Structure formats: C-alpha cells, structure tokens
C-alpha cells in the first residue's frame, strides 16, 4: 500500500514538473515574441466599399507597432470606413512607442493611386496632426512605391502614390516627443483605386 502511494506521489511530482517545464517554455516563447497587434481576419464581402480599398469589409487587416491599449484606441478604428468624430474611434500608438508604424495587409494584390489619412485634427486640436512620415507599398518584400512627407499640416491629408499589384502598405511615422505628436492619432486610412 505504502509502495503504491509512494509510486503515485512520485508520478504526480514528475507530471507536475513536466507540466511546469512545458508552461515555462511556452511563457518564454510568448515573452520572446513581443507581438505587434493585428486586427482580426474578416472575410471579404463582394462589392463592399469600392472607393476605399482599405476597408476591413474587403478582408483587409491592419498591423501596428503598438496601440494605446489602456484607452482602447484599437487599430481597427483606422480601417472601419468611418471618419468618426468620436474621440475613442481612432488608432493611437502606444505612449512608449518611439517609432510607430501601421501596415495595411491586403488579402489579394491591389492597384491604387492615392491614400487619404484622417488625423486627429479633424475633430481634435490640429497640433495632433502628424507632420512627418513615409508611405511604402510593396508586393511581398519587393518595394513598388514610396513617398516621404515632411511638412504635413492637413487634418485630412491626401497623398498621390501609384502602386500596382501590391499586398501591403506601410506608413512609418515620426513621433515628436514632448509635443502633441508624441503619439499617432489616426482616425482613418483610405486607399483610393
């Protein structure tokens, strides 16, 4: 009886140690990954939003360097097709993020000619509009178009950028610490055919 009990106890300890080791490895994987937030995958709806190729209803996803998680400024707001005046409904980069970026992932290659960015100034102080950023479109790793903007003042900025057969559009934004531009406040990205 004592033998059986000892055996069971040893087996339980071994199982517990193996389980703990598995969890420790998994936690290590999680912490090493340091993930960039990405919006959920939505199935494309046929005929949806022909004037805005960035709308999530076309199956587009958006990945960001970070977002202001405690204030719930999720990046999905940047591709929800709404130029909202609700101050919640915008993507805001994380306060600690010194090199914010946002990347649109198209479900299939697209052609477009212009990008419209709706910054916070359309409903909040214009000091929140980002001045300096770079737009790059690519097909896989192949860069197909690039545009650098250094002096934007517009709340609704429109940039001509011709991109053919691309599956992603990335915008790297220069945050300006200790100013209203310390974080990115982006209400909407629209991509016009």
């Amino acid at each position, binding site marked *: 009886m004592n033998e059986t009990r000892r055996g069971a106890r040893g087996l339980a300890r071994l199982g517990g140690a193996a389980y703990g080791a598995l969890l420790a490895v998994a*936690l290590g994987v*999680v912490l090493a990954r*340091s993930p960039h*937030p*990405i919006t959920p995958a939505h199935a494309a709806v046929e005929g949806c939003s022909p004037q805005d190729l960035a709308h999530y209803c076309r199956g587009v996803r958006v990945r960001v360097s970070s977002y202001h*998680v*405690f204030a719930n400024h999720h990046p999905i707001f940047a591709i929800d097709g709404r130029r909202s005046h609700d101050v919640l409904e915008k993507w805001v980069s994380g306060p600690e993020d010194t090199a914010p970026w946002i990347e649109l992932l198209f479900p299939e290659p697209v052609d477009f000619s212009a990008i419209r960015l709706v910054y916070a100034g359309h409903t909040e102080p214009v000091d929140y509009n980002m001045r300096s950023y770079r737009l790059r479109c690519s097909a896989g790793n192949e860069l197909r178009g690039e545009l650098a903007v250094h002096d934007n003042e517009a709340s609704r900025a429109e940039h001509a950028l011709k991109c053919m057969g691309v599956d992603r559009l990335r915008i790297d934004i220069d945050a300006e610490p200790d100013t209203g531009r310390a974080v990115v406040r982006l209400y909407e990205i629209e991509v016009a055919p």
Partner: protein
Amino acid sequence: MIMALGVVARVTAWWFKGGFHYPDEIFQQMEPAHYLRTGVAWLPWEFVRGVRSWVLPGVYAALLEVLSWVGVTGLSAFRLITLQNAILTVIMVPAGYRIGVALWPQGDRDTESAGLSVALFTALLPALVYYTPHTLIGTPCMVALTWGYAHWLEARRSDAPDPRSLLLCGLFFGIAGALRFTCGFHMLVPLADLLLRYRSRALRPLLVGAALPVSIVAVVDLFTWGWPFTP
C-alpha cells in the same frame, strides 16, 4: 475513489457552467493573458496602476500558447483552461483528508473516518465545486490556503515545532498571499496561533517557506511595474 468523485463533480460543474461568474476572471486574468500573447486586449485600470500582478496572466498566456500549438484557440481554449482549473483543484482532497486527521484526537480509532469525511466534503461541497471551473484568482488561492491549513494543523499537534510542516505552511500561505494579498486575512488565525504556540521558533521556517513565492511576485513586479509589490 474520493478524488475520482471530486473529478466527476468538477467536470460536471464545468460542463453545465455558463459564462463567467465575476467579470474579474476575464478582465483581470484572461484579457491580460491575451495581451501578453497578441498585444491586443481590453485591460482594466488595475493594469495601468500596477495593482495586479502579471504572474497568473503569465501562466494563462503560457496555457493559451500551448493550446494554440495544437490548434485550440478562442472560446475552446478558454473552456479547456477552466476545465484544467476545475480538475487541478482536486489536489485539495488529500489536504482535506489531512485536515480531518489533524483535527481528530490522535490515536483514536475514528481518525481515518474523520480524514475521509473531510476529504469527501472537500471533493463534493457544492459551493466549492461551483467555483473550481473559473479563472478567478481565488481558485489557486483556495488550493494553496487549504494545503496551508493542513500543514498548520499538522504543525500544531506536537509540542516542539515541526520544521517541515512549518516550512510547507509558509510555502502555501506564501503562494496564496503572493497571488492575492487579501488571502492574507485567511492566514491571520493560523499564523497568530503558530507564533503564540512556538514563538520565534516558528518564524524562521514560515518565512523561509514563504520566501520563494513572494520573491517570484516581487521580481515580476519589479520588471513589469518598476518596483516590487506595487502599488
């Protein structure tokens, strides 16, 4: 046999359970865990101010990660984690047995029955079984406290302090208190009893036992909030 009954009761409670009982099990545990894995979550204010530890969300994040390796995600993953919690709490049953034995007069012929009665109680008490398939921070605290009580009652049976029982008592109370400091209220009577009974001779093994879990929380707090035992 009693442990098997406990498992059946817990799996039944898990099977028939609806969503969450308290929002905390989602917003204080699973959302932060999801945040660690994906960078996306709806985090409550406690995680802004450093009121909560990241230890348990870290464990749930690891579990979510392991489940994702075998293709289990979303609600199914959450359901499996609650099932795991339910089944793991069955390790309280042996502690219940030892509490029953420790409470009964030593050498009495009914000692075994006393142990089995408390074990059965621990396995099947409806309120206890109900709370096991949840991701509440109280669930692991409850398990640690039960083992802490078992070792307290075993330690107080002899006139001379038993270092091993006191060490394990400190360890389990340390785990419970480290997970949730309000669990400390449930330790006040046992700790006061041990200190009154054995004076300073109890203090050292209790502190040594508690040192490991408390240190883990302190280190995690240091790295996540910038200071041990924030706030």
